[in-house]
């Protein structure tokens, strides 16, 4: 079985079967990270380029470790050390990289659509590792894997996504992927951070945290993106926290087995309180572990393709 698309640019293009296959494959890859020798020879001789024009520790390291555990050669290029600093255009940079015959390109960029633009000029598969406020598909997939590992099934679950929906690529990718998998999504936050258009995505909208998370299976807390709050959409962080910080108190009506996830990095005390973050409900570090397995699965499914089955 192959994925229906050669690039992973958006979760919109992933079918239910694709997502199922990625999650199942990632499930099998988890075991490799628990071995004494955390490496299999599957992608030996393949080259993966991580092209990151925006800062990242988690995602870049996760993609790098995933590639290395599959024996691929992984090269990291960050925006500040690349020739874009000398004025080279994004497309030229990518074309030059492609001339060195990489097998896969992982791209993070501050502008929405940058990876999709590159995919028109580049033959190698491209994985979008986050583009502006648009999408972050591998994050959505690892969130689904984390939820599925706890709940067994995705179909029929209810998830609340809380916070800065407007600027969140994680929210966009998750809403689409979750709906594909039959999850009911509710988005929660102050009106300035929830664009009216989101209702067309078929999600429930709420401005009351405590009520919204009353009967959900999972609450996904988003980071308040301090670097994207210059337009004055929030009057103050403290006011935001008063209403939308996930605290023990705000969970008093929630289910006992509620799961809490957060894509990181966390602003402790702003969108989530310290005790909730450290509580048994929190799966934040499971997400990071699962991220490696998801990225291994994406590399494997995009690269190790095509196989005969002799006996």
């Amino acid at each position, binding site marked *: 079985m192959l994925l229906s698309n050669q690039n992973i640019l958006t979760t919109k293009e992933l079918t239910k079967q694709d997502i199922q296959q990625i999650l*199942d494959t990632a499930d099998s890859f988890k*075991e*490799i990270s628990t*071995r004494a*020798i955390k490496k299999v020879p*599957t992608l030996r001789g393949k080259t993966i380029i991580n092209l990151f024009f925006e800062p990242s520790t988690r995602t870049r390291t996760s993609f790098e470790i995933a590639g290395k555990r599959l024996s691929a050669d992984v090269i990291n290029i960050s925006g500040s050390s690349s020739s874009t600093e000398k004025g080279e255009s994004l497309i030229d940079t990518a074309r030059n990289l492609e001339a060195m015959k990489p097998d896969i390109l992982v791209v993070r960029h501050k502008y929405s659509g940058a990876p999709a633009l590159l995919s028109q000029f580049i033959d190698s598969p491209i994985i979008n590792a986050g583009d502006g406020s648009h999408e972050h598909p591998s994050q959505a997939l690892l969130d689904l894997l984390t939820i599925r590992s706890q709940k067994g099934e995705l179909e029929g679950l209810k998830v609340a996504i809380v916070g800065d929906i407007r600027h969140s690529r994680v929210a966009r990718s998750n809403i689409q992927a979750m709906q594909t998998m039959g999850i009911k999504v509710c988005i929660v936050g102050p009106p300035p951070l929830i664009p009216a258009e989101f209702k067309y995505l078929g999600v429930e909208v709420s401005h009351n945290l405590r009520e919204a998370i009353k009967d959900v299976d999972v609450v996904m807390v988003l980071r308040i993106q301090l670097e994207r709050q210059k337009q004055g959409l929030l009057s103050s962080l403290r006011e935001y926290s008063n209403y939308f910080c996930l605290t023990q108190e705000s969970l008093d009506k929630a289910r006992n087995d509620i799961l809490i996830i957060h894509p990181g990095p966390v602003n402790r005390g702003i969108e989530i309180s310290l005790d909730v973050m450290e509580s048994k409900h929190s799966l934040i570090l499971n997400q990071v572990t699962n991220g490696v397995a998801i990225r291994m699965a994406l590399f494997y499914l995009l690269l190790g393709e*095509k*196989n005969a089955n*002799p*006996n």
Partner: protein
Amino acid sequence: MNSTLLNAKEISRAISRISHEILERNQGAGNIALVGIRTRGVALSQRLRDKIKDIENLTVDHGVLDITLYRDDLTKGLQKPALKKTEILFALENKHIVLCDDVLFTGRTIRAAIDALMDFGRPSSVQLAVLIDRGHRELPIRPDYVGKNVPTAKSKRIQVLLNEEDGEDKVFIQEYSN
């Protein structure tokens, strides 16, 4: 047209004999562990484990290996196999490992299985048990325990059906009709 090589009874006898051979060669079940190669090697290894328990009253360690990630033909051919879990939850050190598979053919699967196994540790030895050896080796690999040797034309296909996977026990040669 298909012709049967082994029926259910013959498969069961072959497994009994192999169990005794394994115990004889390793002087009991003390240091052995069975590892089945997905898919049908797993059922075979479980049956050997059960048989050994009947004979020695001892349950030996048992693991499951998916060799997909170690294949030498991953980037060729037609279709991507679904990756399944590898489960080896015991230490290989000081163990005699008996790899189990249904059909031994080119030897490439076994090469991959040995490589995979070595990533988990350093066993005392690795032995190979197969239900059918059909020849046509492409690598210097030989089985230690064989249910039945079947000289075949390379173009033929040997199909092993086992109850756990297929609902019946049977080995037959499939004739290609083109």
